């Protein structure tokens, strides 16, 4: 089930394994295949996603990010937190603005953190509901750190509180 912006979203992308034939439809391919078959994949003129395994650097996608509709970050085990840095780099230094999708093994209780570093689509297990996600996103009201979600930080809130508004 794909959840995007807090709602169940239709998933128009088909993940395609390396070596399998590409259908004439939006696909998600591995980084390895994307780099190897770049020109022919692009020539299909279909929306495209690339899947990064944990440990593959998003820097490798830097020259191609404008060609991508989706970057998938695949989590092998919830303890593996490398995707937090990968998402944040994509959103900041690499300036990537389209969908970042999380797949694999992550916890409901991590979704708030992933949202903060710029992940905006989650391929969640069927036992997790949209309501669960909404709850998880709003259990903690405020944040201390600036991040790519642009949320007002506690420091900003303090500054506003102590600043007299202009008359």
């Amino acid at each position, binding site marked *: 089930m794909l959840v995007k912006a807090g709602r169940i979203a239709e998933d128009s992308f088909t993940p395609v394994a390396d070596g399998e034939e590409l259908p004439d439809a939006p696909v998600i391919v591995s980084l390895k295949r994307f780099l190897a078959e770049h020109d022919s994949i692009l020539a299909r003129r279909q929306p495209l996603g690339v899947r990064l395994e944990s440990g593959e650097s998003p820097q490798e996608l830097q020259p191609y990010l404008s060609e991508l509709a989706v970057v998938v970050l695949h989590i092998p085990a919830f303890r593996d937190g490398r995707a937090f840095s990968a998402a944040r780099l994509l959103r900041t230094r690499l300036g990537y603005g389209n969908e970042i999708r999380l797949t694999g093994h992550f916890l409901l209780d991590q979704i708030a953190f992933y949202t903060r570093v710029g992940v905006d689509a989650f391929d969640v297990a069927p036992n997790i509901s949209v309501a669960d996600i909404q709850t998880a996103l709003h259990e*903690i009201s405020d944040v201390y750190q600036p991040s790519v979600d642009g949320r007002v930080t506690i420091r900003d809130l303090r500054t506003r509180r102590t600043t007299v508004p202009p008359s």
Partner: protein
Amino acid sequence: MYRYDEFDARLVHERAEQFRGQVARRLAGELTEDEFKPLRLMNGLYLQLHSYMLRIAIPYGTLNARQLRKLAFIARKFDRGYGHFTTRQNLQLHWARLPDVPDMLLELAEVEMHCLQTSGNCVRNITADPFAGAAADEIEDPRILSEILRQWSTLHPEFSFLPRKFKIAVSGSSADRAAIMVHDIGIEILRNARGEIGYRVFVGGGLGRTPFIGHEIGSFVPKSDILAFLEAVMRVYNESGRRDNIHKARIKILVHQIGIEEMRRRVENEFAEIKKTGVLQLPQTEMTRIAAYFAPPNFATLSPANADFEAAKRDNRDFANWVKTNIHAHKIPGYAIATISLKAIGETPGDCSSDEMDGIADIMDAFGQAEIRVTHEQNLVLPHMREADLFALWQRLAALNLATANYGLVTDIIACPGLDYCDLANARSIPIATAIAKRFADLERQHDLGELKIKISGCINACGHHHVGHIGILGVDRKGVENYQILLGGSGAEDASLGEILGPGFDREGIVDAVENVIDTYKNLRSDSERFLDTYRRVGAQPFKERLYAR
């Protein structure tokens, strides 16, 4: 000290409520232990040998009397009437029951406390010099930066699932009372040639299975850059730290494997990129705002020499002994830093009963002490005592059996909870600590031996810091029997070094004799007032080996 505003307060309350929901799901069987484990660990709740254990964060070891009374109350109501102060300046309750934990968290939140990030692969409780704000040699109160780091690291969106746990310590002076050289990141506050205050940053120190002394990675990081610099270190670690083997996942292994030069290059690149965005610059206004919370109390102008104090020392030998070890120089004349030893002979190092906590809180009120400090050596510190009050303080502490005059001496032993509580342990630590303390109970003998730090761990994870004990003791399991190895020559201070294993281990009875033999050997070899550590460094391991393993 720092006081929560409505934002800090809401966060810890919401966190307690969030955990109440998670516990309810667990108790109703909706979550398996496997699914529940990462959630409870994020709230400092461990499952140990006999029971759950709740680890309460004491940021940079600072507590006020109200908080101390609350800890006493929680330990009495929900646990067995005592707590255990740890080498991370935290408090552990070893007999918690799961259904009670949400209420315990709520009670803590009422006094601006929590259990956030006392476990899990995240930035753990920030520790600092327990003499902060009082030490005569201090450049700046390390708690200002520590509080800034506490807020920065709390529920950090990018660094809450690191390869492994991450420990940061801050020292406000060049004398290191916070063991910064054996932390993932150690920070020394220093002044440069132009008189500006900044941070010297060490990375990759640590104990555990593979001990390392930290390497300098930033010689002078300006104040406004410190968060950007730390994020750079953390990001390099999060991306490149090993995740294939839990025993090789700490940042010290990464630094060791790629080398400090390569580590420095990567961090500096990352730091430059982060600085370009400007997002993490720390404004002077924020530093000033936080610093105001740690403004010193209004010190009176006192005469440096107090006749009554001098007379009391002359007339009472026990008091004089206590002053000699447990009192340290304060930056203001007429004031003193008083250490309350939690190492009474025969007691568990670091344990403190609810009654003792209440008694200490009363003493804080009686002597106008707004706060108390927990030290990483498992003692407590009253930072701003008037010298003129010390005799009265000592009498009140003595009535609670809390006036043991052994700070820094052979019976001021650090010990982990060991096999009496911990399911990682291979051997008991506490009975070894108490047996050694009893052997050396004679105070004249202790004072004659001078500074001598014994540190005991019940397994190679080294929670008892045995690598940095002048005498370290490591408990191992040898074919189902507890066995204790001796390490000599470690130090966790500014002259940091790692102890070396002397030779084959000893059984439970033999280890106390072995320690005594080591100490007797030192006594025969020392010159004048030479410390144990200095004698060992001068003569090396050989004389100790000869004495201990002679046939």
